[in-house]
């Protein structure tokens, strides 16, 4: 362990540092610094009259009792519980079907299903808003032709699921591509072995591909959960169509935005952002933990 062995390693370390420096600098400037600043802000209270004072964790305590915030968290939790399994189930089935090699024009389908992901969220929400429209949307049109009342897809009971539909439409393709890529990474020998053992296409899918997809599925789940807790653009766009349902606090992120920009409560908004971050962290951790358990058994 003399000096002779350390110096080349040092040189490597220095080179590595030099290579990562641009990233680190940017990361510190646009991610770490704002985060620390937000943390700092969250510990103060600035009033319209009377200026600024240090309040410590008061905003965090308030956040934990804030019905608007907790209601929003509950709403997105429900969203996660329903939308994420549906979307990933869909993505999984599509990936397995496309991977089976039995679909004609597989490439076309793959691109077609992926295309919605390339549509900006705002555009997607606007477009679906038109489709949902009760007076002129095609859904209402079909209902009218059938002589049944058009469903109110922007109502208090339905809007969350209308948003779920938009996110499913947008992100199924992305998740499918991730799963498809994972499937392509499976060694052909595994399939050969399965075929030799007499497994058909369905059996191979269920008992060979699915277990091997577990890490990719886990990744997709965690991404989707984080994305859902950060829902903002869709409810913000739907606000113009159904303000009486969305209000100021439909999702936690929307609530934080309104607190900061219409209620002048920047400090409280900063605290809620951290609370939301904590919620996302805990939920992601739980998801990972739950999905790992069977794997360790096997």
């Amino acid at each position, binding site marked *: 362990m003399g000096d002779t062995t350390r110096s080349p390693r040092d040189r490597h370390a220095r080179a590595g540092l030099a290579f990562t420096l641009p990233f680190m600098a940017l990361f510190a400037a646009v991610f770490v610094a704002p985060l620390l600043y937000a943390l700092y802000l969250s510990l103060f209270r600035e009033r*319209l009259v009377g200026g600024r004072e240090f309040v410590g964790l008061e905003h965090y305590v308030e956040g934990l009792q804030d019905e608007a915030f907790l209601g929003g968290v509950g709403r997105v939790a429900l969203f996660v519980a329903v939308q994420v399994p549906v979307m990933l189930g869909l993505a999984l089935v599509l990936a397995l079907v496309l991977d089976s090699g039995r679909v004609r024009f597989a490439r076309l389908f793959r691109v077609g299903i992926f295309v919605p992901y390339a549509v900006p969220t705002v555009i997607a929400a606007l477009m679906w808003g038109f489709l949902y*429209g009760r007076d002129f949307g095609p859904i209402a049109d079909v209902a009218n032709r059938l002589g049944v009342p058009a469903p109110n897809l922007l109502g208090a009971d339905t809007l969350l699921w209308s948003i779920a539909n938009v996110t499913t439409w947008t992100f199924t393709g992305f998740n499918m591509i991730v799963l498809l890529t994972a499937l392509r990474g499976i060694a052909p020998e595994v399939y050969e072995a399965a075929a030799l053992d007499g497994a058909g296409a369905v059996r191979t899918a269920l008992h060979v591909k699915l277990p091997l997809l577990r890490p990719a599925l886990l990744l997709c789940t965690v991404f989707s959960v984080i994305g859902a807790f950060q829902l903002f653009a869709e409810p913000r766009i739907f606000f113009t169509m159904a303000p*009486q349902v969305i209000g100021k606090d439909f999702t936690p992120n929307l609530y934080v935005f309104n607190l900061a920009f219409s209620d002048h409560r920047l400090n409280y908004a900063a605290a809620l952002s951290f609370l939301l971050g904590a919620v996302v962290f805990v939920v992601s951790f739980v998801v990972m933990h739950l999905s790992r358990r069977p794997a360790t058994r096997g």
Partner: protein
Amino acid sequence: MRDTERHTTGRRCALLSVAGLCVVLAVVACGGRGGGAVKGPVDVAAALRQPATITVWTWMPGTPEAVKMFRRAYPHIKVKVEHVGQGPPHYQKLRTALKAGRGLPDVVHMELQYIPSFLLTESLLDMTPYLPPEFLEGYPEWIRRQVNVDGGIYGVPWDTGPVGLIYRRDLLEQANIRTPIETWDEFADAAIAYHKANPDSYLVNMPGGQMGQWLALFWQAGARPFSSDPRNLKVELTDPRIKRVTAFWDRLYAAGAVSHDPDFSDAWYQGFARGRYAGWVSAAWGPVLLEDFTRNSKGRWRAQALPQWRRGEHVSGNWGGSTLAVLKGTEHPAVATEFARWILSEQEPVEMFAFDRYLFPARTAMLNNPRWLDRTYPFYGSQAVDRVFADMNDAVDTTWEWPPILEYVATEGDAILGKSVERGAGATAALQQWQDAVVEYAEQQGLEVAGR
């Protein structure tokens, strides 16, 4: 100069002495915020001979033309016009820039209702020293009092929105409804009868979450729920006169006689085009806006006075309307003020806004201009629509004040009343919750709420 100043303050006190606050106000007016008022005469003309560049944030169409006119008068001054959003996004950007202290315009579009809120954050310049004496004499009293807050002048009035009623004459005639509808009682009967005759259509749509419209109706009914004074903030959202208005609409909601779709959405525009709504309780800027998206019913619309609570009365409220204000941080207070004054009070740009851009004028001279009053609108069966709303403008009560926390009051009201009406619980039931939320917020923000 000094004399005029004292004179103006004296008159202002005469107006307010009703409340017995004259002495207090005089002291506040002289020593209070702004401080600019005691600066004495300012040589505006000299400032305008120096080259300067000012930035203006506004969404008002026609501004570039007005700027061209201004530059013919003052070639040394460069004016940059920036459209940063309309309504709430505009104010959000302004708040953000104020917080950052950078990227601020000199002159800013400021709706009447926002003036006390931006005064509370000490963002607006008192324009008095840079304006000609007696400048506000050129405006109707109610408008004067909207910009003349706390002893200073914080905006040059641009346009306003006295409220009236516009309706489809053909549809109402088919339903045998007599027009004009003179009282709210007649209006309620008409709404019920109309919907019975046309199950797919409503006399009007009244969204639960449109505070601009609600507050204008409260204004008409004589309620004064707010004061602008942060040290003695009045919040009376459960006032009987407010409940009278909300209960009136609740009855029509319950009868299914009026719809409560969110307004200014695509579905709402379509609703007019499709005849789902046969009328609109609208402000003076409404008729021209409506024209843009209901071309298919050209010639069938009419405008009339707002229905009254008592027959023979003549009272209205205001919904919308704006000013140009100058921000306190500007390096060119004289130039910025003169720009606002020039494009909003000189004859050439004022006529351009009124005639070419159909803006409802704020200046008395324009409101009395016979050529403008007699202008007919083919869309409204060649009716002189501006005359109807000019008449409503005379009927706007002068004593309404806006709260200094308008953004919260309005967005919270939109959410609370909007949800309650959507749920079928009506607007009246939501007033207490709105009141409590506003009071809690005001106290949390360090304001002193009256009676607490």
